[in-house]
C-alpha cells in the first residue's frame, strides 16, 4: 500500500482495535433487545449502563445525565431545538458565536425562521469570543448560550469557565459543542457550569454514528427523536449497543491517555507550526497560538488555493483538509476563517492538519518538505502571486 500520513483526525479517526474488539460480540452474540424482559437482553442493558458511567465519570457528571445519540450533529440539534421548545415561555433569545459548527449554526438559523432571535457573537483574530460582547448580548429573554468548547477548524479553545459563570449568574442555560474537545482536553461540567454538552465518538477513535448529549439534572428539555421509551423516554430508537459499547471503550482509553497524548501531540504540533512559519514565506497560522487543541494546525498559504493544495498533498499520501470537512463540495470559503478576519483569497488557501497519537516526527518532516514544494509550485502558477511580486519589486 502507498504510504499514508493521515492528518485529518479532526474530521474523523481510526477506530482503535480495542474498541472494535469490545464491539464485536454485540453484533453476533449479544444482539438481544436491551429494552426487553428476557435475560438475554440484560447483558446489553448492563453494557449500556456501564457506558453511561464511564462517560459520566469522564465529565464529572452523573451516569443518568448522559443520553446516547447518533452523533455530534444530533446532539447539537437536540440541545438547541429542545431548549427553544421547552423554554419558549421564558424567552426567545439565543446567543451563539460566528464560528460554531454548522450543526449549531444551521440549527440556530432554522430557529430564526421559527421566530427565535439569535445573536451570533464575533470573535477576535485568534477565534476567541469576546466576553464583553457576550455580556452585552444577554437579555431578559435569553434562554440559551451555546458556545463550542474548541473550534473544529482552527482549534481555538474558548473561555469555557468565564462563559459558564456568566450563563450561571444570569440564570441562562449553557450548552457547549465539545465534539472536538472531548477526549482531548479535560472537561468537568461543574467547573465550567455546563448544562448540556455534545460529543461524538468517531472523533476519539470510537465508531461513527454514535455520540451523546450530557443534560444536567433539572434541565427540562424533552425528546428530539420521539418514539419508544428508551433513554428514560428522552431519546427513542432501539439502542445501538455496539456503538455505545465502542464509544465507552474509546472514552475510557482517551481519558486514561489524555495527558501523555496532549504532551506528545503538542510538541509535534509546535514543531510543525514553527518550521512551516519559518520556512514557507507568506504563511499565517490560524487560531490561537497556545489556547488550541493539542492536535490542531491550521495554516493559510497566501496566493494558493486550498483544494489544489489538498489534492497535491494527497498525491504524496498526505490527508489533510481545508475549511470544515462537512462543507467540502461547497464553494464558500470557511465561515470561521472569515470570522477571524481573513480576506477571501486567504481564507480560500487554508489547510488544516490534525494529528493523532500515531503521527511521528518523520511524518511531520515529510509533510513540511512536501508543503514547501507544493506551495512553491502552486505559487508559480498563481496570478495572485505574480501580481504581488510585480507590485512589490
Amino acid at each position, binding site marked *: 500500500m502507498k504510504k499514508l500520513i493521515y492528518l485529518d483526525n479532526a474530521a474523523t479517526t481510526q477506530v482503535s482495535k480495542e474498541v472494535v474488539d469490545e464491539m464485536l460480540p454485540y453484533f453476533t452474540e449479544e444482539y438481544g433487545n436491551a429494552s426487553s424482559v428476557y435475560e438475554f437482553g440484560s447483558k446489553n442493558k448492563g453494557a449500556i449502563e456501564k457506558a453511561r458511567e464511564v462517560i459520566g465519570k469522564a465529565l464529572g457528571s452523573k451516569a443518568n445525565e448522559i443520553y446516547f445519540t447518533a452523533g455530534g450533529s444530533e446532539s447539537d440539534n437536540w440541545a438547541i431545538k429542545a431548549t427553544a421548545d421547552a423554554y419558549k415561555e421564558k424567552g426567545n433569545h439565543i446567543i451563539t458565536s460566528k464560528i460554531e459548527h454548522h450543526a449549531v449554526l444551521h440549527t440556530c438559523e432554522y430557529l430564526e425562521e421559527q421566530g427565535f432571535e439569535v445573536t451570533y457573537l464575533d470573535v477576535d483574530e485568534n477565534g476567541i469570543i469576546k466576553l464583553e460582547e457576550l455580556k452585552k448580548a444577554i437579555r431578559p429573554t435569553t434562554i440559551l448560550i451555546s458556545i463550542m468548547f474548541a473550534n473544529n477548524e482552527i482549534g481555538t479553545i474558548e473561555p469555557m469557565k468565564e462563559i459558564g459563570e456568566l450563563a450561571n449568574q444570569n440564570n441562562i442555560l449553557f450548552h457547549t459543542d465539545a465534539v472536538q474537545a472531548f477526549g482531548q482536553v479535560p472537561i468537568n461540567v461543574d467547573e465550567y457550569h455546563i448544562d448540556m454538552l455534545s460529543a461524538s465518538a468517531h472523533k476519539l477513535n470510537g465508531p461513527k454514528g454514535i455520540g451523546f448529549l450530557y443534560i444536567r439534572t433539572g434541565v427540562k428539555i424533552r425528546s428530539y427523536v420521539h418514539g419508544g421509551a428508551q433513554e428514560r423516554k428522552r431519546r427513542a430508537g432501539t439502542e445501538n449497543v455496539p456503538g455505545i459499547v465502542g464509544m465507552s471503550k474509546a472514552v475510557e482509553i482517551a481519558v486514561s491517555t489524555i495527558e501523555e497524548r496532549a504532551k506528545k501531540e503538542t510538541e509535534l504540533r509546535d514543531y510543525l507550526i514553527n518550521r512551516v512559519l519559518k520556512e514557507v514565506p507568506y504563511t499565517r497560522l490560524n487560531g490561537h497560538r497556545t489556547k488550541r487543541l493539542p492536535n490542531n494546525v491550521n495554516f493559510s498559504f497566501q*496566493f*494558493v*488555493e*486550498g*483544494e*489544489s493544495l489538498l*489534492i497535491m498533498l494527497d*498525491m504524496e499520501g498526505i490527508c489533510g483538509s481545508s475549511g470544515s470537512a462537512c462543507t467540502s*463540495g*461547497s*464553494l*464558500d*470559503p470557511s465561515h470561521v476563517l472569515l470570522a477571524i478576519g481573513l*480576506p*477571501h*483569497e486567504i481564507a*480560500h488557501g487554508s489547510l488544516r492538519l490534525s494529528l493523532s497519537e500515531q503521527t511521528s516526527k518523520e511524518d511531520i518532516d515529510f509533510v513540511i518538505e512536501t508543503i514547501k514544494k507544493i506551495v512553491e509550485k502552486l505559487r*508559480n*502558477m*498563481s*496570478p*495572485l*502571486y*505574480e501580481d504581488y511580486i510585480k507590485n512589490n519589486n
Partner: protein
Amino acid sequence: MYSEKVMDHFQNPRNAGELENANGVGTVGNAKCGDIMRIYFDIDDDQIIKDVRFKTFGCGAAVATSSMATELVKGKTIYEALEVTNKAVMEALDGLPPVKVHCSLLAEEAIHAALWDYAEKKGIVIEGLEKPKNDIHEEEEEEEY
C-alpha cells in the same frame, strides 16, 4: 471526484506559466469565489494563436480547465478560439462534477478576455466577441430534490 483526464491536467498542467511577449492577456474570476484565471496569448499576424500560457489560482478543476483550454486554442485562429466553449472544455476533460462546472465557464471567459485585450491593443473588432465580465459566478443553486 475528478476524472483521470482532469487529474492528469491538474498534475501536469500544459502551458502553465507566463508569456513574456504576450499581445493579449485576460484575467477573470475573483478571490471571493476562490478562482482567478489569467491567460496569455501570443497571436501572430495571421491571427493565429502561436503560443499560450496560463496562471490560475483555484481548485483542481480550475487548473485543469485552464490547462485544457490552452491546449484547445493553441494553433487556432482567433475566430476558432472564440468557438471553444466551456462545454468543449468539459467534454475534453471527460466531464466535471456539477459543483465545478463554473470553472469551465471561467476558462471560456478567460479566453474571451485575452482576445478582447488583444483586439483592444490592435484596435480591431473581433466579430461575435462581447466584452467579458470578469466575474463569472453562478449562484450555487438550492439542490432540486
